[in-house]
């Protein structure tokens, strides 16, 4: 295993490599690739934190927990609510900020504030040839040249290994409340979420649990505002409901898909048009279903080895295998797009060393 302590060492490791490298942050997200492990945990530490500018810069191997703790002292947070995969996958280790960004990991709040990639202001990385590259910076508005920051976020290290990331952070709200609607079917639940998201009340969490027949809506902000908006939302949606204050643990459970923890079946994640959610779930043959992002993100518990992609057929979206064997993790791409992504991988990693085969 390689464990470089600096960006320079990271560049040397990659430049000198003659066999595939399996890139690993904290190793908590169940991504396995052939080759020698290249860990980033040795490059750790917050290098800059400016609360008044809402920016933090950290080395890629910095534990997410360390960043969250630093932000908490200034009453700020990573607003995109990154999922912790350890519970769902039964993995151990310390999730790193580089891993979060390389995999573009977002939680329930993604529907209102954006994804991890929307909070990534700048990157430093080492490409597959060993060149150190920077893109973006540490300011919130930056259109100077191509946005490789977005390209690196979600590339799972296949285009380069992150060495440093700079992020936008947001203030924590004064309080939050969650409205729980009881007894709705999946179609009714998703319709209620759509209605709420089409209101001016700035929903920051919108989920539906078909097992419990519960539909959840979160509002965050100043106390009088949250109270006012909750009442308005109750009026808008009606039916049997109650309000839970704060409910941090409840949403941490949704973020981490805790409902599917400690089961043996395959776990899939489907990204789709929200209103298509219930029909897709019905087609899937799933043993369990959870809707997040107002229906736009479906978590499915599937019989092991079942080909979900074949079951779903064509739709606007894609499926990712989060846990399971013998199937491709990522959805195969349409020909034109596949040619572009293959071209990019070839240019950024000409020897095909970085997480070989993971994304095609």
């Amino acid at each position: 295993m390689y464990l470089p302590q600096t960006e320079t060492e990271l560049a040397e490791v990659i430049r000198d490599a003659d066999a595939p490298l399996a890139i690993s942050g904290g190793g908590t997200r169940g991504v396995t690739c052939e080759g020698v492990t290249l860990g980033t945990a040795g490059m750790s530490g917050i290098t800059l934190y400016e609360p008044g500018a809402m920016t933090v810069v950290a080395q890629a191997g910095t534990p997410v927990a360390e960043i969250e703790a630093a932000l908490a002292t200034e009453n700020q947070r990573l607003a995109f609510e990154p999922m912790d995969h350890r519970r769902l996958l039964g993995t151990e280790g310390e999730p790193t900020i580089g891993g979060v960004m390389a995999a573009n990991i977002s939680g329930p709040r993604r529907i209102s504030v954006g994804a991890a990639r929307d909070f990534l202001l700048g990157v430093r990385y080492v490409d597959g040839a060993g060149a150190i590259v920077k893109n973006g910076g540490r300011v919130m508005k930056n259109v100077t040249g191509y946005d490789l920051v977005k390209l690196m976020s979600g590339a799972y290290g296949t285009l380069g290994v992150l060495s440093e990331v700079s992020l936008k952070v947001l203030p924590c709200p004064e309080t939050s409340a969650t409205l729980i609607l009881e007894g709705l079917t999946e179609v009714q639940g998703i319709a209620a979420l759509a209605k709420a998201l089409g209101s001016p009340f700035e929903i920051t969490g919108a989920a539906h649990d078909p097992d419990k027949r519960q539909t959840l809506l979160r509002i965050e902000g100043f106390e009088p505002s949250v109270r006012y908006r909750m009442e308005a939302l109750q009026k808008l949606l009606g039916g049997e409901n109650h309000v839970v204050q704060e409910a941090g643990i409840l949403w941490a459970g949704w973020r981490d898909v805790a409902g599917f923890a400690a089961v043996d079946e395959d776990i899939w994640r489907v990204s789709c048009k929200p209103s298509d959610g219930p029909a897709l779930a019905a087609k899937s043959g799933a043993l369990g279903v959870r809707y997040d992002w107002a229906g736009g993100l479906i978590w499915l518990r599937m019989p092991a080895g079942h080909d979900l992609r074949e079951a779903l057929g064509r739709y606007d979206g894609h499926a990712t295998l989060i846990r399971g064997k013998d199937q491709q993790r990522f959805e195969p791409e349409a020909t034109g797009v596949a040619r572009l992504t293959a071209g990019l991988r070839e240019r950024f990693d000409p020897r095909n060393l970085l997480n070989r085969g993971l994304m095609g």
Partner: protein
Amino acid sequence: MEMPRPNPAVLARKARVVERLQAVLPAQAVIHEESETRAYECDALTAYRCAPMVAVLPATTAEVSAVLRICHEEGVPVVPRGSGTSLAGGALPTADCVILGVARMNGVIETDYDNRFIRVQTGRTNLSVTGAVEEDGFFYAPDPSSQLACAIAGNIAMNSGGAHCLKYGVTTNNLMGVTMVMMDGEIVEIGGTYLDAGGLDLLGVICGSEGQLGVVTEATLRILHKPEGARPVLMGFDDNEVAGACVSDIIKAGVLPVAIEFMDRPCIEATEAFAHAGYPMCEALLIVEVEGSDDEIDHQLALIMEIAQRHNPVELRQSKSAEESAAIWLGRKSAFGAMGQMGDYMCLDGTIPVSSLPHVLRRIGEMSKEYGLRVGNVFHAGDGNMHPLILFDANKPGDLELCEAFGADILKLCVEVGGCLTGEHGVGIEKRDLMHVQYAAADLEAQMAVKDVFDPQWLLNPAKVFPLDASESRRQVAIAAE
């Protein structure tokens, strides 16, 4: 400003290129007479002009594909054009190019409130996207100042921002999918009505690529329900530094305004003389706007004013009504016009870390004296996006060059303090040769590698974004390949 010399071999093929384009487009959509191509000789960076060889105005994705296929086969450079409002020269033609204007493609394809998106043809103007959904209470958030005229195509090309992006983000944060035509005519679909990319985030790199990777003909955009209301507070300070500290304290307090605008003394004075908005004469003026119901606004403005009080403002004026809000915004919205009354001006667009604000303003003031050119600063203070307006006299020989040198020094300063050359206008030709200041050779090489993949012959908007010396070998290969 240096532009590559037109390729004589391409110019010699003009008649054939025109004939082939006329075969796939209606006659009036192919503009090739010199008297008519002149209409496309520049964008909003009017200091630089060059009529294109041909301009075409296709009406469908299929027509765009047919045009690009022909240009690809003929080795003709293509400069895509939205509404031509670029301040960076993003749509400046070369004499051997085909201008591909998307202005005729301005329809709404689909509106879906349940899933909160609108799909439009990209020639549609930014404001008319909101126009298509506002009766139903929705809006499209990115709001560049030119939103009445600028096209979504250009917004995507430049990843445009606006005054309200502190809360709602810029174009890339509100773009869900595109139909794009590659230089060889192939049509690709990227993204869609779902929230995250399936594989690599191609959408993320297409947005802001200044029309160099493909021609985006349709876009799926996120729409939001309008807030119940919005009102600003105006505050004046005797010191830039204090105003900067106030911004920082507001952000740290957990209030996230929808906009924080900053004007310095020269800009306030110009604006007052022009628009008579009733602004206080002071060193720094902030306009902070929040959204919500009336009670919610009052609550947030009270918190903001409490913070402002701690910084001894010389003026603190909370809007209580739509009329008072309009009065507060009047000066800010006429700032560019006011500066324009005082002479020709160049508008810069660098971004700095908010903490560097006092230092940067002080240095700009010093440089203003050194160069003997006046400058006013308007500023999206929440996100550090500066808009220094440098005044010069276009009729005075050498003044434009002096102004450009001053502007370049300001942008270098932005990079030096940890910021960047451009926050929302794009690089275009204007900042092309300054890219070396912000990026090392390897950084530029990585970006150019993306273009190599999307447009191997470097035919799309080829002389933009990258310093000419950095991109030269690639552009020469394209010419030699003929």
